[in-house]
């Protein structure tokens, strides 16, 4: 593998699946994450990785439902890592540093009453991911990349 580090994403994709997420659909929010979790269980991924990835996936899914028009969640499993991307079309995030602050939320009162909008979604994604990347363009959308390493000795 040495000397190929920069080509690591070109390695063989063992499994790939996409889930569509609809903005505003609070009733079904989280279902894609549950399907994803079941797939990872069937494949036999380490339970701690599944637990952390399911937390990140749910939070990302709920954010698309809460803030964006629609989005795609994609899982790519490689021999050495799992890559979860969530890409949406929506308002985007102007100040990512602010959005990443624990407790920061622009959720409406109605949404907070439902138990969403604690401002812990992005911080918890970051905390549970091995690598967390976020990029966003205002009035276009947001893209999240969550990577889990599969070959860690302590994983």
């Amino acid at each position: 593998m040495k000397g190929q580090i920069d080509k690591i994403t070109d390695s063989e994709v063992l499994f790939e699946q996409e889930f569509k997420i609809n903005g505003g659909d609070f009733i079904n929010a989280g279902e894609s994450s549950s399907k994803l979790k079941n797939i990872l269980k069937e494949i036999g991924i380490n339970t701690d990785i599944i637990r952390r990835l399911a937390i990140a996936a749910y939070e990302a899914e709920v954010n698309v439902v809460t803030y964006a028009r629609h989005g795609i969640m994609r899982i790519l499993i490689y021999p050495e890592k799992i890559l979860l991307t969530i890409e949406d079309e929506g308002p985007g995030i102007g100040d990512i540093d602010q959005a990443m602050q624990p407790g920061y939320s622009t959720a409406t009162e109605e949404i907070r009453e439902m138990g969403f909008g604690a401002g812990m979604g992005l911080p918890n994604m970051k905390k549970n991911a091995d690598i967390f990347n976020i990029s966003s363009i205002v009035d276009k959308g947001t893209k999240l990349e969550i990577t889990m390493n599969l070959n860690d000795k302590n994983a």
Partner: protein
Amino acid sequence: MTGKKIKLSKVIEQFNLKIECGEQFLDKEIKGGYVSDLLSDVIANCKEGYIWITLQGHPNIVAVAVLKEACGIVIINNRQPEEETIKKAKKEKVPIMTSSLTAFELVGKLYELGISG
């Protein structure tokens, strides 16, 4: 704690919880409990086989319980689940119970019985 296995059905009977749906799935062991109304908190901290105590009654609690593999949801304080919540819970085989107790009272009783967090 006692190390004794406690089933959902036992807790329902002992504390007079009202079964709203999922009566076929009450033969499950309660492995612990979590109480919160913030979904991010539940997603981060509730564990598999736990009983989840909340005052939320909207449909998304079912998705949260499914994802965390909670053994059931108890909605406290005389709050009622929405119709859509029950529909979803039936489909997903998640037992939902209601109680007139407050979260504090119910958690106290569960803890006393040997269920911890």
